[in-house]
């Protein structure tokens, strides 16, 4: 069945419908990771996005039972050059196409994804519609323009857990993870290090989070514009003073905003598994996994409390910060990988060391 992807600026990309038939709108973005489509689709940070995979052959190794980052697909749609219908991998349980159908996700294949990515690079990510229903391009473009930009919505409230739960009951430090759209990978990283991991909703009250006197708190990654997540910023302001904190992705942005940073939307975001980040103090560089459309920056005043610890080697954007006086640090990228390089998993160790150190001090 034919399908079309129409962007709000009226440009159209034709192809074949994959996944669920029908129509879906979202913010059209591109991801340059060559592997990891299962993780990317199921990462709650992908909420609201129609994801273009720049690697042309997608679905090669199918869908397996272990690599989910959450229970289902969070992306609204997927755009690929070619979808593989005969995957091969010993862990493969399902076709990507079947997985899309099960999750009611529309997609389009046969698109010149390089041309689309170039367009998004030049003009910025924008709203778009995938449709396998016969409607004119003009009509679809009009519809795309009239839909709200997903990041203007409160996406976090759509993905956060409804109830607090214990993910792992290790004997190590007690860590509360505030779920702004947490990835399984983050929880696993903590669990593997022996932590007791309690996951709480993003809208929790500080006193609930502190009730069990956690050793540390992790502000998780998640979707959308950090400024829409005012409750997250409020939490950050209060909790920073109460316990050692690590932030990832959206969590980093919320902590930064609480420290006086400004957030802004990147033209086409950072989505992929090859982003070079340098640790400013040591000069050491790391290849990181990234999946974000917003970034933060600090002005002179805010730098009184905060040190920018990491920067992106490509565009110089802030990739990490540390509070000068409080045991709080955060990174824009994903040290838990899944998908992407495992170069930065040491940050979890650093967090745990901090918990231990703070514990001794107390």
């Amino acid at each position, binding site marked *: 069945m034919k399908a079309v992807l129409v962007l709000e600026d009226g440009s159209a990309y034709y192809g074949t419908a994959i996944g669920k038939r029908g129509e879906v709108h979202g913010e059209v973005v*591109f991801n340059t990771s*060559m592997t990891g489509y299962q993780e990317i689709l199921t990462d709650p940070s992908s909420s609201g996005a129609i994801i273009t995979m720049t690697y*042309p*052959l997608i679905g*090669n190794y199918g869908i397996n039972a272990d690599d989910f980052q959450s229970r289902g697909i969070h992306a609204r749609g997927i755009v690929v*050059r070619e979808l593989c219908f005969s995957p091969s991998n010993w862990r493969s349980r399902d076709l990507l196409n079947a997985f899309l159908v099960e999750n009611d996700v529309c997609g389009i294949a046969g698109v010149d994804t390089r*041309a689309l990515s170039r367009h998004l690079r030049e003009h910025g990510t924008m709203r778009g519609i995938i449709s396998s229903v016969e409607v004119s391009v003009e009509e679809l473009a009009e519809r795309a323009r009239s839909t709200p930009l997903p990041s203007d919505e409160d996406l976090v409230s759509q993905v956060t857990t409804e109830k607090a739960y214990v993910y792992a009951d290790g004997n190590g430090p007690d860590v509360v993870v505030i779920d702004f759209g947490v990835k399984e990978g983050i929880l696993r990283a903590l669990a593997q290090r022996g932590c007791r991991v309690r996951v709480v909703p993003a809208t929790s009250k500080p006193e609930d989070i502190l009730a069990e006197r956690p050793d540390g708190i992790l502000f998780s990654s998640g979707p959308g514009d950090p400024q829409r997540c005012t409750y997250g910023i409020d939490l950050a302001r209060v909790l920073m003073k109460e316990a050692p904190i690590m932030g990832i992705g959206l969590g980093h942005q919320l902590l930064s905003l609480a420290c006086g940073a400004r957030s802004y939307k990147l033209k086409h975001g950072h989505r992929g598994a090859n982003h070079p980040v340098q640790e400013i103090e040591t000069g050491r*560089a790391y290849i990181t996994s990234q999946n974000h459309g917003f970034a933060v920056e600090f002005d002179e005043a805010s730098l009184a409390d905060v040190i920018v610890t990491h920067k992106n080697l490509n565009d110089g954007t802030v990739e990490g910060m540390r509070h000068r006086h409080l045991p709080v640090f955060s990174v824009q990228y994903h040290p838990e990988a*899944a998908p992407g390089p495992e170069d930065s998993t040491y940050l979890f160790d650093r967090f745990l060391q901090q918990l231990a150190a703070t514990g001794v001090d107390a």
Partner: protein
Amino acid sequence: MPKAEGLRRIMVIGSGPIVIGQAAEFDYAGTQACKALKEEGMEVILVNSNPATIMTDPEVADAVYLEPLEPEFIARIIEKERPDGLLPTLGGQTGLNMAVALAESGVLEKFGVRLLGTPLESIRKAEDRDLFKQTMESIGEPVAESTIADSLAAAFEFAEQIGYPIIVRPAFTLGGSGGGIANNKDELREIVGRGLKNSPIKQVLLERSLAGWKEIEYEVIRDAADNCITVCNMENIDPIGIHTGDSIVVAPSQTLTDKEHQMLRSAALKIIRALGIEGGCNVQFALSPTGFEYYVIEVNPRVSRSSALASKATGYPIAKVAAKIGIGLTLPEITNPITQKTTAFFEPSLDYCVIKFPRWPFDKFTTANRTLGTQMKATGEVMAIDRTFEGALQKAVRSLEIGLDGLQLDKLKDLSTEQIRQQLKVVDDERIFVLAEALRRGIPREEIHQITAIDYWFIDRIHKIIQMETTLQERLRAVPWTSWGPAEAELMARAKQMGFADSYLSRLLGVSELAIREWRSEHGVLPKYKMVDTCAAEYEAATPYFYSTYDQHDDARPSDRPKVLVLGSGPIRIGQGIEFDYCSVHSAWALQEAGYEAIIVNNNPETVSTDFDTSDRLYFEPLTVEDVLNIIEKEKPEGVVVQFGGQTAINLAAPLAARGVRILGTSVDSIDLAEDRERFEAFLRRLGIPQTEGKAATSLEEAMGFALKIGFPLMVRPSYVLGGRAMEIVHNESELYEYMKTAVKVTPDHPVLVDRYISGMEVEVDAICDGEQVLIPGIMEHIERAGVHSGDSYSLFPHQSLTKSQVERIVDYTRRMALGLGAVGLVNVQFVIEGDRVYVIEVNPRASRTVPFVSKVTGVPMVALATRCMLGEKLADYGYPDGLLEPPPYVSVKAPVFSFEKMNAVDIFLGPEMKSTGEVLGIDENADAAIYKAVVAAGGRMADRGTILATLADKDKAEGLELLRSFAELGYSFMATSGTADLLESAGIPVQRLFKIGEGHPDVLDAIKEGKVDLLLNTPTRGKIPERNGFQMRRAAVEFRVPCITSLDTAAAMLRVLQERKAGRALQPYSLQEYLQRFQSVGKYRLRHGLMV
């Protein structure tokens, strides 16, 4: 970290001659590295014996030493040049070995030379099997368990520990004969039992068998500050068991989840850190197809063939970055040359699929064993890029130039399905085509997978290609071609996306190739060009590096500057090597200097020509009419240069011209005149120039009739070939009959050339003609007599023994032929001299393989001049005269280098069929010293005294005796079989008699195998039939690294060399620049302005 202190002069060691397993990739890496070092303000001293390379151009390094890659020679250069540092990891295994030897012998310490980049300790850790194993174990990275067993009990004990399957290899047997894979205790008992018996030291090596596991490679870079990246990963389509150089490889990996990929990537980073490598390295893994288990197979602590491939596949210049790391820079400090804005610390993201396909020499080594295993046999490779796997695969196949334009091998059509099934079990160069045929026959994918262990993903992709064939044919049955319209355009687009060539479709659909092209054009099924930009379009890049694909949008925007297309020479193969890449590169540079935009089309990932900054634009495409025409239609160049890309480019000249493309320089008609036997004969008759008598025979009868007329011996070969493919000398009617019947297919379209064989001296000339004037930089004289292929001959420059009148005649003939042909550009002429007569053997109006050699030692920029002539300029514009230049006051010798060690069952007798894979240069003040250097550079180890095993053909006995007598005077002793032994004894020279093979022991093979022979002198009666004594003897010599001389002329040269050496003459190294400086004061005809880059 800033550049290391106190570094100003850096020595770089190249990889020497092209041999199987070490090819053009090191010219690419070396050139890039030298440029990178100069960019950082370093003075570069380069040592490399290979004259056919760009890296040995005087412009690439500040001092270029074309000296043998032997520690004693390099030590002398170090003593003279006093470099501050030595960068050893860019010259392949050769460069690495030299550096290790120089470090271990204390030379580096003595002269205060720092070893740059990867430390010696790291190299040892990576290369020494035990140290490597220990290192891997210490960081918890698994290495396949192995042990040495000297009894069945020990073997059983090992099996108990690790389980089955187990590979068994008897120690020290030729080609590992007697080994095998044991799947259970019974098989182990049998194989080990046999192996222990076969092994001369009664030992077998046992190792866990990983046969059928996935072979995955990572290219990793690390700097001294411990920053690491992986440039890319690659998946071998052929599972473990076939050397990666002989495997079809895809990048990036296709069947790995992110989890598996990251697991191996992390392991690769851990390994490079543990080894402490500073620069690039390649890590190979075996990955279980059914689990997360993996083993580290091997690490190459240097740039390699794989790193060249990874560079071309991703756009990331590994060698350049490795060189900069070598002088102390860190990855974040190095600018990313692609974006010019970001740093070298990034990992490329691909938005296309890359396939590397090996090019094997079995078309030349027809008797060689085609089975593939752990010993690499490919001479070169091609790379293809597309947005689909199928497209990249089919493009790769047609880039190979093996007469195929798709996945169909004609000879398989005649086999029954059962035979195909059997054939699938054979692991050789044709397996992928057998696999395609198996799918065509409906053999189930499960069965194919079970036999080949090739991953289902790849089998299914090939199946899609086969299904498309069926779909197209079904559509043709439903809708006749003449009615194909817009409805079929979509189908056609899908077929083209899968890489189907028009020529293949033409056969499939039964219409002409042209009709398909025109139909496609009419229906808008046209290729688009996409950019290789390292970042999947995430950042704006300026890399002018493109591939075609049938997609929707085009990245390539042609400029409005005048432009010229240079056709490259495709994969390295026997007869068409790196020399033509050298020529293509220089032509592109000359075009740029002349104000044109130079566009290169080529598909060889190993070369300098496919470096993204060599030309203004690079199209990484197959060199076929269809693919090249597409680019021409896109770019609309002023013309196309075909003279420099070997036979590959020349073959495209006529079909391109027929489509209205302007061929620059010598016209297509002139090319045909030189190649068409009859036209050429008439041409020479008209000019009154004598030619060796010959005839183009279109049938057996015609050939026989001609033979009766002029008599034997005759030289026979098919027409229109390069590198003397399937050439032979026949001595009688039955040999001629056999050749005509079995060696070639004779048709009126493809006649067989039958020439009188003249046993005289061969002479070769490369000239440049501008249509009015002919410049001859010099004359080369072959040491081997005629009949040995010019590419396999020792070649002296300038000529040493020609008389004045012979020289005059050669110059006169060359001039008149070049002008008469209307040649514009390069002309290569081969002569044979018999007495006073100078015969023309052949004329090639194009670059020959000696052009880099002659350009280099004369300083005449031949390719640049030829290119300028093609653009309409004149030799006189650059102050060059008509005729022969004065000879330089030094002698250069080009020596062939062979890769016979890699090939089982190949006769190394040097006949008229070219067999060498590479060449080296010896340069010195006199011929003998130059010959000596050339022999040493070519790998010959000449001792001052020793034992010569001599077996002379009857015809050589008289001349040979005198030679042997002189060897005896030097102190050599002899071994011989009956005939030659009689000869020596009758002359009073003591000799130890040996039996011929099969007549008793000790025979000649025993003597060679027991290490009693230092030099084999064997002048063959005739080759070809492997059972003959000579064949087996020469084969054994190769296997046991005994120098083997097959012609009396070479033996005589060697004799003089040894006499020289005995006289105690020490050879001094001089750089090419120093030689040219001397010549400049003699010759008056250097370039007046900088033509060369």
